[in-house]
């Protein structure tokens, strides 16, 4: 999944929303008919390119096996079937993997939001020595290559009996989710005017009260977006999951799905695989669609000079 280094500045986003969009280039008169047709074709081509693979997964998942491996070229099955989905949901190992992934991802989101908010507040609002150093460490952590530490992490996890456990994987996932959350939320807090909690401090509130009662309510939208992004990262993670789990105890859905094989080596269960792929992906797509404006703003704000 793409890295999202986000520098959220609310004014910036607001400006983006207003200046983007229509009215940017109203030179329609200059476009001749040919150009218009070409443009429409380009748009259709882009839509086809981005959407077809997932569309094809859905179609394959509801196509009967015999038709899937026939020579017929089709874009929609002659007779749709839910069989493949029944098989997916009847597969205990897969269902367990779904549950494992859900538990791990939710745990990661909760832990990184709790710790991340506190740390982000300190980074944005409190002055202490070592903050600059820590700030840069956090930034570089968000780009840390997991492969560099799996060998030694493997040894550590064995020593602490964390290998092949849900909690073990959850803690390992914090290594990318927490720095990411801190980074995003710190920038979020920074964008908030300092006067907000200064008023509370003057009235005798402590720093923590100011955080809880003034900043936190305002940060909820940012926390929701960050939480969702962290969930997506954790849900989609593969390298650690593949390396640190071995049994159904802790195997995540990404590992389970990559190992999905049929009973016979001659009959690859393409349709069932695609059904499983759709099941794993739908929650993410729904989540992303629900908060898509914020997600786009969030994932792109980092690149805009702010």
């Amino acid at each position, binding site marked *: *999944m*793409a890295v999202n280094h986000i520098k959220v500045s609310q004014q910036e986003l607001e400006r*983006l929303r207003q*200046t983007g*969009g229509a*009215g*940017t*280039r109203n030179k329609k008169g200059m476009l001749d008919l040919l150009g218009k047709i070409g*443009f429409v074709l*380009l748009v259709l081509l*882009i839509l086809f390119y981005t959407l077809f*693979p997932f569309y094809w*997964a859905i179609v394959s998942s509801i196509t009967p096996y015999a038709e*899937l491996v026939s020579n017929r*070229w089709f874009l929609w099955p002659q007779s749709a079937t839910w069989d493949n989905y029944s098989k997916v949901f009847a597969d205990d190992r897969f269902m367990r993997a779904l549950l494992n992934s859900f538990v791990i991802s939710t745990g990661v989101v909760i832990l990184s939001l709790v*710790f991340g908010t506190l*740390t982000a507040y*300190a980074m944005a*609002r409190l*002055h*202490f*020595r070592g*903050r600059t150093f820590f700030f840069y460490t*956090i*930034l*570089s952590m968000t*780009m840390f*290559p997991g*492969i*560099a*530490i*799996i060998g*030694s992490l493997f*040894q550590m996890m064995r020593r602490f009996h964390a290998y092949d456990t849900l909690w073990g994987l959850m803690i390992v996932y*914090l*290594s990318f989710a*927490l*720095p990411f959350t*801190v980074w995003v939320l710190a920038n979020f807090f920074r964008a908030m005017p300092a006067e907000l909690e*200064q008023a509370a401090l003057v009235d005798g509130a402590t720093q923590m009260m100011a955080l809880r009662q003034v900043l936190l309510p305002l940060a909820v939208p940012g926390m929701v977006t960050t939480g969702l992004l962290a969930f997506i990262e954790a*849900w*989609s993670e*593969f*390298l650690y999951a593949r*390396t640190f789990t071995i049994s159904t105890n802790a195997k995540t859905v*990404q590992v389970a*799905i990559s190992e999905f094989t049929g009973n016979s080596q001659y009959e690859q269960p*393409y349709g069932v*695989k*695609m059904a499983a*792929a759709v099941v794993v992906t739908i929650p*993410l*797509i729904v*989540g*992303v669609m629900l908060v*898509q404006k914020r997600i*786009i703003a969030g*994932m792109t704000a980092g*690149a805009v*000079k702010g």
Partner: protein
Amino acid sequence: MATNTTTAAPRKVSKFSAPPTKAGRSIERLGWVLILPTVLVVLGIAIYPLVESFRLSFTNYRSSRPDRWRYVGFDNYRDLFSDEVFHKALWNTIIFTVTSVAAETILGMIVALTIHSAFKGRGVVRTSMLVPWAIPTVVSSMLWGWMLNDSYGIVNKTLVGMGFDRFHKFSWVGDPGTALMSIVAVDVWKTTPFMALLLLAGLQVIPDDVYEASRVDGASKWQQFWQITLPLLKPALLVALVFRTLAAFRVFDIIFVMNSYNTSTISVSVYAHRELMNNQRIGYGSAIAVVIFLCIAFLVVLYTRMIKVEET
């Protein structure tokens, strides 16, 4: 950790700091308490294992015989120099990184410019961008693996249907000539949307009057692109490029899911994983991992120089 930070030192005065006072000290202490969990996570799950990886890379440790190991100095690194699989992995990784990042950038630019022009339904196109981005990499690899399936894949069916008989049962991932490029295609599909949305955000902050002024001066659209859009887009473009380069260089999921440890498409990360986990050569694998880390670290330094992180 909170206690040894209480001695005051001269420092930048910010809104909430009053250095030598009691209040300033308590704020400093609070700051340390609040960052403690994150510090512990970073130290325990990143810094310490990283140091361990460096240490292990100087040993001949194997997980199959954990009791018998010794330090071997730079032997592992020396072996890497003459290891042909490592050369292959490095070369594959470079090819993968360069081609996929280049293709993503060009396609992303085309998509961004398209969405940026005002037309009915641009919201739909922008939303559709989120679909490949949201799909987990493992799943994207499976979708493409299925589309590129030699016997029943839609790609071969279509090509054969169009009369290209040589694609009958053609194995895109199995054929060494197309294997790496098939994998690049999946990565490009998966990450072009991210690139496009980053560039789109960059496009949207370019003020309209710049274009207006150049239009009045008689500049063509083509000239506008090269002389206004591209230079003004440079910051966004650079950041996007480096992000993508970093991610592409450590590619693991796509290659592992589509072609396992196969040498034809092996990347440095996949090779490190093979040595560490499959062959249980922790020492040697760690040396590969360290080399990957150093390459990434170099790129990160480059990156942090480019986006100036403003310390309040």
